[in-house]
């Protein structure tokens, strides 16, 4: 055993006995996302794109609009379009329940709110756990993340609201 090897052994032993001492492991950088469920699928949305999570508001229906356009509502004093994510993505009607909430999007041009079945709260997402979607088939979903042995789609609200499909809301 040379000296280097000895030093390495000493480090290993010390680390093994360092109970109650500050972690010396490398801290992985993460970002924050809101985990929610829509149309029976769990999805994530970056926290920075969400302005608030609120109970479903009272809204008025808009005649001649696509079925996923639920209506217009007064959200914190702003005229806001309310959309049904489940119907938009999966052509399924949302299940209104006592856990239903709306995600108020933080967009520059207009105010938009998306009805989801349930919000599970904030999750810390390691950058290493995500990857690009191989075959994007959902509008605004470009990446996905590994969580609980499953790949969950990450919804980019800016990309969604900029898309042609979203802008063409007239039936």
């Amino acid at each position, binding site marked *: 055993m040379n000296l280097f090897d000895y030093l390495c052994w000493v480090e290993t032993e010390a680390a093994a006995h360092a109970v109650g001492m500050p972690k010396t492991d490398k801290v992985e950088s993460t970002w924050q996302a809101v985990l929610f469920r829509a149309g029976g699928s769990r999805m994530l949305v970056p926290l*920075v794109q969400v302005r608030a*999570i609120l109970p479903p508001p009272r809204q008025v229906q808009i005649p001649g609009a696509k079925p996923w356009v639920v209506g217009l509502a007064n959200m914190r004093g702003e005229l806001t379009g309310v959309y049904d994510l489940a119907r938009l993505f999966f052509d399924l009607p949302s299940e209104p329940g006592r856990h239903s909430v709306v995600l108020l999007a933080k967009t520059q041009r207009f105010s938009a709110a998306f009805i989801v079945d349930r*919000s599970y709260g904030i999750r810390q997402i390691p950058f290493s756990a995500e990857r690009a979607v191989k075959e994007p088939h959902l509008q605004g979903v470009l990446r996905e993340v590994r969580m609980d042995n499953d790949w969950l789609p990450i919804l980019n609200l800016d990309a969604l609201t900029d898309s042609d499909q979203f802008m063409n809301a007239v039936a």
Partner: protein
Amino acid sequence: MSLGVKLGGLSRQVITLVVVAAITLLVTVAIFILSAMNDQALLERRLVASQLERLSQEMTIETLRAVRGNKASFDTVLSLRAQFISDLNALSGKDPKRPAAGVPNERKAELAKVQKSWDEYNLALAKVLEGQKAILGVGDLASQINQLLPDLLSSSDEVVQTLIAAQASPQVVYLATRQLMLVERIGLTMGEITSGGQNAANASDRFGRDVALFGGVLNGFLNGNRMAPQINDPAARAKLRDVAVLFATVNQGGSDLLSEAPTLLAANQAAIKIDKIAGAFTGDVSKLSSTLAQDQVNAGQLAYFGYLTGLIVLLMLAWLGVVLVRDSRYAMKMTESQNQRNQQAILRLLDEMMTLADGDLSSHTTVTEDITGAIADSVNYSIDALRDLVGTINDTSVRVASAVQRSQADSRALAETSRVQAEKISSVSDAIAQMSDQIEAVSFNAQQSATIAQSSVDVAHRGGDAVRETITGMANIREQIQETAKRIKRLGESSQEIGDIVGLITDIADQTNILALNAAIQAAMAGEAGRGFAVVADEVQRLAERVGKATRQIELLVNTIQTDTSEAMLAMEQTTTNVVSGATLAENAGKALREIETVSLNLSEQISEIAKVTEQEALVATNLRQTVNNIRAETQETTDKASRAADEIGALGSLSQELNNSVAGFKMPDR
């Protein structure tokens, strides 16, 4: 017999006479009653008719007085008319109070004539009565005006004098003078109107015109018109005003008088008509009255028939007296000869009965048609009965003698039989004594059995009590189980309430979660400054999630509690059912024990009864032994008496012989 027929014949004749006399008497009475009733009716008719005559005359007089303004006469006329109508109705037979006053059919023509006259008269009379108010009113008005007229005349005269003194124009003086004349004429014409004469119509016309002329001229003098110029002299005007004041009253009275004038005229004309027809009317009524009076005089022939029938009744009563005297004399003669014949018959019967007294039954007495015939017949019947009696006694004594001999032999045999019977009865008495001892032993055994049965009754009773206590215990258990079930049910309800509260907590946790999320978002937007707040928000979110998990666990626990309580309730219900069925079983056992108790009691009573009966039987057997001994003694006595009876029957045979000898004295006809 011939006397009875004679008497019967006499009775029929007398009865016929009495009946005929009574009928004739009734006819007489009826004739007299009829005659009296007829006379009464005729008298009443005549009185009513004569009253009609008087009424018609008085009515005419009073009517003429009434028309002349006599107020009392109007009332009299009214009452007279009512009386006349009533009487006329009575004569027509329409008055139910006086049915007898109706005239007979042959006088209806006279009555119809009166009725016709009366109808005409009554019509005129009604008009007079209608004018009553006018007649009386006009009279009053006339007297009032008549009082004023002198004043009016003198005032008008003063006017004329004043005008002449004032040297008025001749035309004015003429007009004023004419006023005087008019006043006087008004007075005259008013008299004519009130008297109601032929010229009353003309008078009333003139009266109206005079009053109008006077009024017009007076008005002209005062105010000036086409009839007269106005007078300006102050003195004359003052006088004219006096005249105008008086004339106003006269004018008013005059116009009232004129308004009544037509009625008055009609009444006066009616009165004139009444005056004209009164003679004929009164004549008709008088004729009816005299006719009815003549009818009464002519009636009365009916009474003569009554006198005739009365005479017939008297003659028949005299005949009846003669017949009665003749019959009584004949009856006396018949009775005397009958008595003589009866005396002879009785003497003959006494002779024939003398032989019967000597005991000779071989001959009969002679039966004749006399009074003794029935007695002789009865005596013959007695003789026949005596013959039968004596014959029967002879035959019977012979039969008694032979029967006595047979009875004597039977009595001897009876005495021997009785002796043998006494010996047999002795052996029966011994057997009965033995039987009595055995019955006493049975009675003792039965008493023992009764005691045992009584003890079994007590045992069954105690068993029944134990079962009843068991049933009470089971009922208590059931009540306690029901109480416990209620408590468990309340527990289930409480756990339900806990579940509700947990749901509320879950909602709060969810909302807290969302709040924490929004706080985190706000912190993130604040950038570096919000990092600390983000940590707090993160902790709050974790807390909310833990609360959510804890509430889910509580919900599970509450569900488990509710399931367990439901199962516990089911188990309790099952237990209650088991307790109830156990109680039913115990009750059945109790019933069975009660039946055993009843049966044991009955058994005990029956055994006691048997013991009592056997005891009585033992007593009876002892009595029986005594009785048999008595029978044995009496049988011995019977044997002795049978021997004595045989001896006495022998004596009876000699008594029968004596009886035969006693009837040997009667002499019987040869057979």
